């Protein structure tokens, strides 16, 4: 599954650590999701959507 995390993070000028602290996860988690090596669970995907103020389908795509 692909995602727009890096792009969305860059738009807001957030580091991986910034996003991680907002999500309550480790920086490695953000890195793993961002690089597509780890698919987040639905609760984490919802948290990501909430942090960015977007719908899940506008962050993740196939």
């Amino acid at each position, binding site marked *: 599954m692909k995602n727009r995390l890096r792009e969305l993070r860059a738009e807001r000028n957030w580091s991986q*650590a910034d996003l*991680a*602290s907002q999500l*309550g*996860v*480790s*920086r*490695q*988690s953000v*890195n*793993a*999701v961002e690089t597509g*090596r*780890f698919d*987040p*669970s639905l609760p*984490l995907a919802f948290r990501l959507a909430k942090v960015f103020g977007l719908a899940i389908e506008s962050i993740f795509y196939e």
Partner: protein
Amino acid sequence: MSFCRKMTPLQQRTMRLMGVAMLLTVVTNFSTPGLANPLVDLFPALGRIVTPHASVPVAMLMAAISVLPIVMVAWIAWRYLSAEPDEFVRALVMRALLWAFAVTMVGNAVTAVLMNVYHLAFPLTVLDADLFFIGGGVAFRVLQWSYR
């Protein structure tokens, strides 16, 4: 919340409990009489109990005691995995545990063959524990490094 440099209170508690489990492994190891055992040093009578002439109930009790560290490690892992809020770290820990099991089984198989070939007694229980803890720790670090 970097898992690498600073551990969360939950992770610190888990590491401390793992240390206790490692100590318990040494203390409850009755598989090799020649091996140093602090519990036998404290209570020399135990050394006289663990002999080939021990009664069946005593032998079964000693065998049951040696299971304690394994049960404790399983409990620590379960407790940690159910409390860890970071699902990615949970996945890494699960994979590290699987590697630890694999390394332990390989070490056990190789040692068992060598013991059989050379007719040597070896403290397998302690070896298993060492392999499990070291294998798990190294596997976790390697997995974590791969996602740095």
